């Protein structure tokens, strides 16, 4: 057994390195996105790149504290941290400041904090703590219900703040549950339902219904045609038909108008160059104009002329795509892929269920952010305003991701100390 003080030797430097690289890329991109001939000092705190530099420094201090902390603390206090976050989420509903439509910020002087960002961390801890208990198993209904409650309680509270993007992120924890033994079919069902929803909107209701019937007939040839199988297939057909019939209703009566437009823009039914489609369209032009090698550092014109709104926060990937081209995009996405693969490896090598579940939770949240954020800039996902981990401008999200990742790195460094 190794010595506790050798912690820095046990740290997984690959993960640390990737996260530092992402922060560096983020800072360079923010610098390029807001670059103006008038201000070029990189330490100018009136500019976003100046502030981001400060926040990166503070994030590193935070990371150091986490690494020096006692790893047992996180499991022991998971529930308390979780409950404290829930309390914050309720308080922000009552006393929060509204910024661009979401009542999700605490404002203290110039300083703003978004509790939703930290809710992901505390939910991950709470979930890991629950599943890490010896008597817990996802084969039991009780554990399933409890874990779903842990996940969706904060999500619901965030939804009440009109911050739909952050609320959806909690769906990512389903990946963790799947790994830990939650049945696969509800996930598959949700995926199929999502695809059916989009296809129905994109084509026509009749076409999809005919398709379902055709699928039913084809599948009859592949199964043993006994009563039970036929009944099962018929049941699936009926469920599918009902679902397709309800799509129009849900789309027109349940969704908010701006959500409808975003979905319409995504599936190409609406091309309003000056309205909802504007961001995505400009973002695609910026990325597309980058070409293979990119236009070069500070040479981007689309992002520089402010064609892309939110270019230093949610649409930061545009700057990378435009100035560094396909090559740059490949590097950035490669870094993320490396991070994800590494996180899976690290999670799987944990000896405690707590650490493994927590590791998968970190992976899931980061992957979900990555998928939605980049997907929306290239027109493959609806516009949901969530940041790109470590890269997007903003203190709250940077610290939240740093905290999440480094707690896992700390747990991992300690893995050999456990029996």
């Amino acid at each position: 057994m190794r010595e506790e003080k050798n912690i820095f030797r046990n740290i997984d430097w690959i993960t640390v390195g990737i996260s530092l690289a992402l922060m560096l890329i983020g800072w360079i991109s923010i610098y390029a996105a807001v670059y103006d001939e008038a201000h070029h000092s990189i330490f100018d705190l009136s500019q976003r790149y100046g502030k981001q530099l400060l926040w990166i420094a503070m994030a590193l201090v935070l990371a150091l504290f986490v690494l020096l902390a006692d790893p047992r603390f996180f499991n022991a206090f998971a529930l308390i941290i979780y409950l404290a976050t829930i309390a914050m989420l309720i308080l922000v509903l009552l006393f929060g400041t509204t910024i661009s439509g979401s009542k999700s910020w605490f404002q203290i002087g110039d300083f703003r904090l978004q509790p939703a960002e930290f809710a992901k961390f505390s939910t991950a801890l709470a979930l890991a703590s629950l599943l890490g208990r010896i008597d817990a198993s996802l084969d039991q209904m009780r554990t399933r219900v409890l874990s779903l409650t842990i996940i969706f309680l904060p999500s619901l509270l965030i939804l009440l703040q009109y911050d739909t993007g952050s609320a959806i992120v909690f769906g990512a924890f389903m990946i963790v549950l799947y790994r830990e033994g939650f049945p696969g079919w509800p996930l598959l069902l949700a995926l199929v339902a999502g695809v059916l929803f989009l296809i129905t909107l994109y084509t026509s209701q009749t076409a999809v219904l005919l398709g379902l019937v055709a699928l039913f007939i084809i599948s009859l040839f592949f199964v043993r045609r006994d009563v039970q199988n036929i009944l099962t297939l018929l049941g699936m057909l009926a469920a599918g038909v009902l679902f397709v019939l309800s799509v129009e209703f849900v789309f027109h009566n349940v969704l908010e108008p701006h959500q409808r437009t975003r979905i319409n823009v995504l599936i190409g039914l609406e091309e309003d160059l000056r309205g909802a489609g504007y961001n995505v369209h400009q973002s695609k032009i910026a990325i597309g104009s980058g070409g293979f090698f990119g236009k070069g550092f500070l040479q981007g014109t689309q992002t520089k002329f402010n064609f892309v709104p939110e270019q230093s926060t949610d649409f930061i990937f545009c700057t990378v795509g435009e100035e560094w081209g396909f090559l740059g995009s490949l590097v950035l996405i490669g870094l993320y892929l490396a991070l994800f693969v590494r996180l899976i490896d690290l999670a799987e090598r944990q000896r405690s269920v707590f650490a493994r579940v927590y590791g998968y939770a970190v992976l899931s949240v980061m992957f979900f952010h990555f998928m939605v954020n980049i997907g929306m800039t290239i027109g493959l996902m609806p516009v949901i305003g969530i940041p790109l981990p470590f890269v997007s401008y903003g203190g709250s999200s940077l610290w939240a991701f740093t905290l999440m990742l480094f707690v896992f790195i700390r747990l991992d460094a300690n893995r050999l100390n456990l029996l």
Partner: protein
Amino acid sequence: MRSRQLAFRRYHILLGILVVVVIYLLRLFWLQVIDQSYKFSSQNNVLRFVTLYPPRGTMLDRNGELLVYNETAYDLMIVPRQARIPDTLEFARLLKIDVQQLRTRIEKARNYSRVKPSVLVEQISKEDYGYISEKLYQYPGFYFQTRTLRKYPMAIGAHILGDVGEVSPAEMERNPYYKMGDYIGKSGLERSYEQYLRGRKGIRVVMVDVHNREKGSYKEGRFDTLPENGQTLHLGLDLRLQAYGEQLMANKTGSVVAIDPRTGEILALVSSPGYDPNLLVGRQRGANFNQLLNDPRKPLINRAISGTYPPGSTFKMINALVALQAGAINEHTQFSCQGKSSQPIRCTHAHVTPLAVKEAIEHSCNPFFWNTFRSTLYASRFKNHKEAYQYWYDKMMAFGLGHKFDTDIPFELPGNIPSRNFFDRVYRGNWNAMTVRSLSIGQGEILLTPLQIANLAAIIGNEGWYYPPHLVRRIGNGTDSLPASFTTKIHTGVDRKYFQIVKEAMLNVFEGGGGTARRYKIADFQAAGKTGTVQNPHGKDHSLFMAFAPFDNPTIAIAVVVENAGFGATWAAPIASLMMEQFLTGEVKRKDLEQRMLEAVLN
């Protein structure tokens, strides 16, 4: 083994991540390397949204002659972020503005937005445009946008046609169709028929390279929309009559309104002093507008619809008609007149006495109408004089008085017919015919617009009905494009036979030996009319005249008001007479009279 099974699920998750990453990379490869439409030039590629302004609808008179048309002008646009000016002095000279002004304008555009286009110099003429556009390649970040400006072949009808100007922030907020720098009808028909005249803007998305050169349509024009031309307005106005009326009213203050009684179409609507509509077009619009606004003669006011006057004697026919209909008098009822010593209202005319309604109108006898009005208020069919007054008031409304016609140009006033409640309030409920006696001769609280007086002439000419007066007879090629209110016949509820009595009396005003307008009788047709001389606390009496012609089947009804000019017979009657002659015969034979009216200076 359950736990090994579950451990295998890591590969499902990994596979999911890989699928997403591969899809994203393929998509990026497509966007960045294969699809060329996003980077047409490897340099600067900027989309420019060029608004295509449709030509505004023109306006034609009743004979298809042009009242307003369009002329092309060009706005020079600037996109401050892209703007490069190698030599400011040279550029200012090119644009014909001084350097300091150029700098302020660029600064203003930059403050509005660095990336959105703003107008730098508006309404550049065709000649300058050709010259400047040849040199414009030296100045990236500038381009031209085509606009149309209003042009008036004859400088007439400014009050009717109205003017066009840039939208105000308030207007933009009310209607999101309008964007900064768009034009909108500000007054007159331009304002009321804005939505038909403006057409619909189109948009063209073009790609522009770093040298400010258009590189063609973006995505083969998938996002372009064609502009829709504004619709033509066909007016009931007679251009020649309008022009003639404005000439006659030059150097006088007042108005002339002529209506076609058969349809309610306004043939002429003159308000004097007027102004040249071309003043409110183009770059000098603001300065000229302020000058007109501060002119002590107030040329911007459209006196024909927003000037209100006591109608004086022209009102007597209406009182006679109401009394006849109420049964308070009949055709043969006579009242005596003591001339200047009559009580409570004296008579200014010498005539036979006693007299009946027809002669009373012809001689404009004040005591007769005082007695008529009193008889109406105390007629036996009413419970009391207040109820009788209500009957009288309701009839006034039916004659189109005391309320707006909602005609098709803005700023029309309702005039005033005092209500029963008004007198109850003023006299604390204690009033009678004596108290309100001025109403009997069209004085006191009564106020009418010249439009309402002309419409009274139309009602009498039609023997009891009218269409609300309006200017536009047709929009575009539509057949039923007019508001229904303009094509709904309104009946006054007074019998035709009473109108015939009044008409005969008005005929005698021209034809009779003692008629007040007998000197202005026209040889070619019979006209009927009534003079009015209205006391006015601010100066000399107003001169009023109302008439219609030809007598048997009137096609023109007219009202003339000349402010502070004295007797109705001296100025308003001859002007009305000349107008009718011009309209019905196409030329004026009485050159002496015409000359005298044209030369008169009465302000």
